[in-house]
């Protein structure tokens, strides 16, 4: 049996045209997906069953005991941190926020180690964006800034950007210019009409110079900016001003390097400036397939998109204070629940050391270094393959993910709900 139009639960492209071949309840083939997506559909090693740590070793147990232990850990903690939520569906996030309220915890998503600075940039300047289809149908100039979709979002260029075709872009790549700005000549850069190699940590300067040129203050720019000849910058600014519809697609090159949210603030300002001359939009190249979705759910439920502290019962938001890495760095978190993420791999080593000193609950289909540190491990169905639910594409478009095969395992949502029920019962007992 072929299941059509399946959504891919890998990256923020959230491709929804995947064909999945199912035989005897197992996936035997995947068409149209990229290497990243195919790899996920075809499956990886799974956590074999629920486990709790006894005498230093993870030991198999029942789901009921795992839920009980998880609830006890969260209930006993004074400053629990509930982290992850991006490789799962929005329905899980909703339950997670409720759980965080119930235990007076801090809830944060993997956004804070990816495009969190982009969100802070948006708080400063707003985001002049669009859906990806708007880029596909109209853009005659694409600028990838610190983004490498050839490796991180392999179908982006074909479906939505450089190589896509649409109403006003029938020639596809042939009718477009592509500019790449990066600190190394990436695979994406190799496909560019113009590549600007910048030194790490100089994005802010380079964007500022472009803004000055765009606004007619180019004569104040020195001959080189961060090592780039002024003539190169003038050429790029000229391409931007000549475009009918330009799209700036920003990646972790801006958010992970010196300047962080200030880089994004400046990029958003450049796009706002450019709209005084022609049409421009800017989008963040979000990583996980539903990292955008957690931000949406968290915003409509708490008012804020990430790093929300619910210790006082009222949402309090101050990334830099209430983000996961901050709480761990200050050794403030005294228990951690990780849902659909792997902070042990993705946080700096010293931050992970703080994680190793506190009880950790893991809810995930897959084993990973967070499993090594966990005291309770609860395996779940893979969202988008074994469980349905809502996800938001990198441009904020909401889509419904399908269930293609049955795993017999509980969903992330069910697991969080079970833990929530037990936390409430513990509260009633006290």
């Amino acid at each position, binding site marked *: 049996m072929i299941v059509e139009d399946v959504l891919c639960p890998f990256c923020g492209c959230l491709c929804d045209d995947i064909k999945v071949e199912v035989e005897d309840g197992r996936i035997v083939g995947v068409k149209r997906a990229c290497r990243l997506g195919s790899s996920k559909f075809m499956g990886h*090693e799974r956590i074999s069953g629920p486990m709790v740590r006894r005498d230093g070793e993870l030991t198999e147990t029942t789901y009921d005991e795992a839920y009980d232990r998880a609830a006890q850990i969260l209930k006993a903690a004074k400053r629990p941190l509930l982290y992850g939520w991006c490789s799962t569906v929005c329905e899980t996030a909703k339950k997670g926020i409720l759980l965080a309220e119930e235990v007076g915890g801090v809830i944060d998503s993997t956004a804070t180690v990816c495009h969190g600075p982009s969100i802070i940039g948006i708080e400063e300047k707003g985001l002049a964006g669009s859906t990806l289809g708007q880029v596909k149908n109209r853009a005659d100039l694409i600028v990838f800034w610190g983004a490498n979709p050839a490796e991180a979002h392999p179908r982006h260029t074909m479906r939505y950007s450089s190589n896509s075709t649409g109403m006003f872009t029938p020639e596809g790549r042939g009718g477009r210019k592509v500019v790449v700005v990066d600190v190394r000549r990436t695979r994406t850069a190799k496909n560019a009409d113009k590549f600007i190699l910048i030194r790490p940590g100089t994005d802010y300067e380079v964007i500022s110079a472009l803004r000055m040129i765009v606004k007619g203050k180019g004569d104040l720019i020195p001959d080189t900016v961060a090592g780039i000849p002024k003539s190169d910058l003038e050429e790029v600014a000229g391409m931007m001003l000549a475009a009918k519809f330009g799209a700036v697609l920003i990646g972790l*090159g801006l958010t992970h390097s010196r300047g962080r949210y200030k880089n994004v603030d400046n990029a958003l300002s450049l796009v706002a400036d450019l709209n005084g001359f022609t049409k421009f939009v800017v989008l963040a190249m979000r990583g996980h397939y539903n990292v955008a979705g957690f931000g949406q759910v968290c915003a409509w439920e708490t008012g804020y998109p990430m790093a929300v502290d619910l210790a006082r019962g009222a949402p309090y938001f101050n*990334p830099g204070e*209430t983000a996961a890495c*901050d709480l761990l760095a200050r050794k403030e978190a005294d228990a951690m629940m990780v849902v659909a993420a792997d902070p042990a791999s993705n946080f*700096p080593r010293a931050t*992970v050391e703080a994680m190793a000193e506190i009880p950790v609950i893991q809810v995930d289909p897959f084993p990973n270094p967070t499993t090594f540190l966990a005291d309770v491990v609860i395996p779940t169905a893979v969202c988008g393959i074994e469980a349905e639910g809502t996800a938001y594409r990198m441009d904020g478009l909401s889509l419904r993910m399908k269930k293609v095969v049955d795993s017999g395992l509980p969903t992330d949502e069910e697991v969080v709900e079970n833990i929530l029920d037990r936390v409430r019962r513990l509260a009633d007992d006290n």
Partner: protein
Amino acid sequence: MVIILKAIMISGRTLGQGASLEAKTSPEFFKATSICALSESDYDDLGISGEANVLVRTEFGEVVVSARKDDGLPPGVIFIPMGPWANAVVGMDTGGCGTPLFKGTEAEVEGTKMRVKDIQELFADLLRRGGDRS
């Protein structure tokens, strides 16, 4: 004499890292992620060849990874795919915005005969501290 290269370390995504992202205990993830890419000239300057390993050291830690040439990298910039090997040398400061500086750490690189730790070994010293609690 040991040749020490001063460089800026950045981390980032690769296809191989992404394809094995949810299979962290697999050989594919190890192969894709426990590496350090260097420009051809930096690689040659280190006096290493073939399947050599390098020791990458920053003020936050050090890690052994296997060296690769990458013609896309400019001299003075090294690249380690996102993952626990890269994060072994990234600092925890978030600059007041919640996000560590994953790209742009000053590093020293030298050839080494030391072995690359596998993922279990990388976390071995943390495991014991994870001990039994209830």
